[in-house]
């Protein structure tokens, strides 16, 4: 993954930075893509991440980081246009298609993704995953939600509280 970087500010090529996952895998990406993360952007603006140094990300494993970077690389051009006011409808539709497919993944991956997006402050990704999770549980009953999200079965007291709440707000279950 990691390629040696010349480090001598060659103007034509985009500036690259290196990110290091918690399990020590090195990822080299364009600075513009990594800068979708508000936290990384500061480091990158300060000149970090170039050359052999790399930016360590102790909270993100390599599987999650590669997924995060897939999102960043896809969204970087639009973000560079300042939210892409000039983007064509085709571009926007393509990004939307990408987003929909991107979150069509296992729940444990969704969980790692939203935590990583939160830590790295990637607003678009965090909101994309939040929306996906919301859609997953939206029409479901409390028990179905617990099952969907893998919560343990409720204790008898919890069950009693749930029943009381359902009685009080019966209309929400119509």
């Amino acid at each position, binding site marked *: 993954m990691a390629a040696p970087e010349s480090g001598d500010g060659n103007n034509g090529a985009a500036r690259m930075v290196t990110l290091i996952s918690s399990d020590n895998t090195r990822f080299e990406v364009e600075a513009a893509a990594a800068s979708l993360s508000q936290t990384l952007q500061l480091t990158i603006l300060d000149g970090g991440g170039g050359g052999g140094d790399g930016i360590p990300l102790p909270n993100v494993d390599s599987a999650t980081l590669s997924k995060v970077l897939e999102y960043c690389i896809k969204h970087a051009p639009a973000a560079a246009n300042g939210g892409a006011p000039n983007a064509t409808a085709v571009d926007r539709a393509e990004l939307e298609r990408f987003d929909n497919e991107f979150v069509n993944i296992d729940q444990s991956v969704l*969980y790692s993704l939203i935590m990583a997006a*939160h830590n790295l402050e990637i607003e678009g990704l965090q909101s994309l995953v*939040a929306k996906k999770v*919301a859609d997953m*549980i939206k029409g479901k009953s*409390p028990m179905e939600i617990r099952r969907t999200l893998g*919560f343990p079965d409720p204790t008898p007291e919890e069950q009693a509280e749930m029943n009381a709440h359902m009685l009080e707000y019966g*209309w929400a279950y119509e």
Partner: protein
Amino acid sequence: MDKLTDDLLIEIFSRVPYKCLRRFACVSRRWRALIAHPDNRRKLPQTLAGFFYYTTSPRFADVSGTDPPFFDLSLAFLPDREREGLDLVDGCNGLLLFRCYRFADAIEFDYLSSTLPQRSGLQCRSHGVGRTSDSEDNDDDGDGHVLGVTIYSSVTRVWSHKQSNWCVDVFVCGMLYVITICSSIGAVDVEGRTWRIIDFPCTEESWRGHAVCGSPFFDTGAGLIDLSQGKLHLANNYDVTGDQLAIWALEDNNSKEWTLKHTVSFRHLLKHVQFGFHEFIVVAMHPDRNMSHWLMVNNNPTVTGWPNFSRSSSCSAIMYLA
């Protein structure tokens, strides 16, 4: 997912309708505490907190069940000098509209809009407040023809005047969707670009009445529109005797198709009804559930003023729709 931080859970919760949120509150103690916490209220979908009505002075009927009540009618959140001579005209989405009499000429007024203090939140209807450009503004030609509306945007915080493109008689008395004087609803978007007229729904009974009385809706202005469960709802007379009230839903804002959701006889609600519709006003429809709030109007103002409402009093009914 049980390990998600509070911030992230709130972000997920903020993306569902209020009805779902009520179910989420049942999922676990932690979810319930998060949803109930006042700090999170602004970020989460909100529902009807209450509504304003007038007796001798403005009142707020609180249906939020929170303590203290959602809204402080002393308007303590406004600066002192602005609290004088205010008439509350409307409120929605945490935004209030006042008519202010603060000029030397006692009948001259202007309008003040204000957002509610942080912890409150009123029913969400739209992101704007509209008012008619009525005769005081010389936009009514004296015959009920409204020539324009003035719309306040909570986004830009400015009032803007729009020339009406409506070509039939309308009288605008609210925002976005307004009941007109000829049994139709005028609709205008907040930018003032789209102007539409939607006719009141008509039943077979009312057409039969039409043959008898000459008009299916001779009592114009009888009715209320409100937003419920994402659709425009209308409460109006179902038959010409004025004995039944109907709740309609506009299925699709473009198609102009109405669905009759419910009818109710006034005699069914209270035994001593004499004049039907005129004794009742539907004052609000619940934004999330099949429920409307009613006022009973006492026609003798020396006894109770007009109207009188409280949740426990016999003068009000809270009706569930089928």
